């Protein structure tokens, strides 16, 4: 047995011992709280296992290792199976069967609904998609795929145009001079009531220049030279400043996720914090 294998086995044994110790201590803690013995043993196992999986995933920060692999494969396998079951019970049994067959509805114990012949269209498209499994009928699946992509692209055209384009147009309609009283009051009185119009006007100019230069950057059919080049350079600056702000904001959100996981480890598992 070579050295690295021996070290791996020692680590594995250590983890097993720690796991069992943690399980016993957690069970005892739960028993002291007043939980039933069987329940406490079960709950203690799940809490310890969840802590082990959390640490196994964290171990990825060091390097790829068998514990991370175990957690990864368990996570992927369980989630794939779970979503398959959800898909079957919610879409097929919950949505499709009640609309097409009373007998099957009774079999699956779901309340039947009024028969709807249109539900056979997705059924046929779904079966055509499954024809991919057949070497000879594989071409049939392309019809389903074409239907999905074509229909949704068409529907999205209107949706995007309305929500993104037109909303953007209407939100960009802002006055560049808001109840202008001159720059004097701004310098003489920094209070919001006095400088509000100036600040709002300035903000509107920033929006105008940002939208204008940002759009110029996204012109693809013209070389970015001369005026276009300068405007697109301003555009990319505007974009980068926006991304920077967004980055900071999102990182703070991620930190809160980390805090949530650490809270589980230190509170639910180790009981070090209350």
């Amino acid at each position, binding site marked *: 047995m070579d050295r690295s294998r021996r070290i791996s086995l020692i680590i594995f044994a250590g983890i097993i011992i720690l796991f069992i110790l943690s399980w016993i201590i957690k069970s005892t803690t739960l028993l002291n709280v007043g939980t039933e013995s069987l329940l406490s043993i079960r709950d203690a196992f799940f809490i310890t296992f969840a802590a082990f999986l959390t640490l196994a995933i964290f171990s990825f920060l060091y390097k790829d290792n068998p514990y991370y692999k175990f957690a990864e494969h368990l996570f992927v396998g369980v989630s794939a199976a*779970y979503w398959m079951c959800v898909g079957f019970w919610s879409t097929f049994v919950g949505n499709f069967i009640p609309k097409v067959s009373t007998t099957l509805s009774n079999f699956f114990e779901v309340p039947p609904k*009024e028969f709807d012949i249109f539900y056979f269209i997705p059924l046929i498209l779904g079966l055509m998609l499954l024809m991919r499994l057949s070497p000879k009928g594989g071409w049939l699946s392309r019809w389903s795929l074409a239907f999905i992509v074509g229909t949704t692209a068409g529907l999205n055209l209107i949706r995007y145009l309305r929500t993104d384009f037109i909303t953007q*147009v209407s939100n960009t309609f802002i006055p560049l001079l808001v109840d202008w009283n001159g720059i004097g009051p701004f310098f003489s009185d920094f209070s919001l009531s006095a400088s509000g119009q100036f600040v709002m006007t300035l903000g509107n100019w920033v929006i105008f220049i940002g939208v204008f230069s940002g759009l110029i950057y996204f012109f*693809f059919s013209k070389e970015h030279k001369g005026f276009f080049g300068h405007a697109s350079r301003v555009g990319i600056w505007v974009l980068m400043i926006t991304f920077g702000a967004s980055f900071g904001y999102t990182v703070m959100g991620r930190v809160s996720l980390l805090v949530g996981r650490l809270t589980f480890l230190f509170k639910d598992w180790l009981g070090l914090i209350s």
Partner: protein
Amino acid sequence: MRLKLLFLSCLLLIFICTSAFTQDEAVVADSLETTAETISPAPATSLTAIDKPDDHGHGIDLSWELSADDGGGLMSVMGYMIYRATSPDGSYEARSGLLLNVTAYSDVGAMNEGENDYMPDYTDYYYKVRALTTDSAVFADSEILGPVQSFGQWFNWKRLSVLLLVAGFLFLTVYFIQKAKGGAKLFVRRLAGIEAVDEAIGRATEMGKPILYVLGLGTAADIATIASYTILSRVAKKVAEYQTGLIVPCYDPIVMAIAQETVKTSYMNAGRADAYNEDMVYFVTNQQFAYVAGVNGVMLRDRPATNIYMGKFYAESLILAETGVAAGSIQIAGTDEISQIPFFVVACDYTLIGEELYAASAYLGKEPLLLGSLKAQDYAKACLIFLAIIGFITLMFGYHGIVDFFHVAG
């Protein structure tokens, strides 16, 4: 004696006056109490009901004038409730909560039979507005109005601006596609991120390592995913020509099916149909972070030379890109998910920002269809700038017509 009589008379007068005044107060107070407790307020008047315009049906707009005792008169009305029945003397059911100080209400029901609050079209409805006081037993109903029916309209005038813009955009698209088909050369500016793809494939070939292509978490319906297929097609063709490995782990089964078709076609176009292996494109899972864990594992075990992320990404973007950096891969990313672009910018070598992802398809394909639509998009952007300038000018002069026209509601 006179003085005594005068004094007694004064006392009597004061007593009488005091008694009368006290009695008056009691009567007034009593009268007010009676008014508040027993006198019904004046009802809401001028009730009108019409089918809700510019909708798919199942809605009726109501309007009325406030009760005379709302904000005036007895000041006893605190709000209104709408009641509806299917016959004038039928049982009326409440259709709204307590409406305070309003004179209009839209009674909108569900459109599908079997749903709660289903409101069938072309049915006679009768309405009344109830003016309510603080005492639930004291109220006043307006006159019953009806029958009125709800029905859907074929055209929603509130979305006229959408129609005009779609028509304009389609016209431009068709025009430029025809122009491109006619042989006109439509210029597309250089996109560094896309030019780097060929270089990255070459590097992978030299290193004898595979290329990892991630289509993101979007569904087959997302525009970013559709754009990503075109880039995948180009990458797969190059990979087939150079005989490099390709790994495409998928999040969505439908996306996987389309990706398999795309890669297969590219291999056939490259004349390497025999080298195509269905296992290149495979399904991982439909759960966000489990998918990330799976892809991260691939990055660390197969050590791809190049990671390409194109499509829709969410919170997993930084986890993927960071792992790619740790694995020492060249990384090229592109997404239209604004909140995720910063992470790709930070962790990847090249990033396609937002619409550059869509333009990449045209840049790579150079097909008239894609080039024409790209040119039309540029014109749409120019149109947006023009409209914005017009909007600024008109707003400065106090005219809100253009702003209202583009404010799409409903």
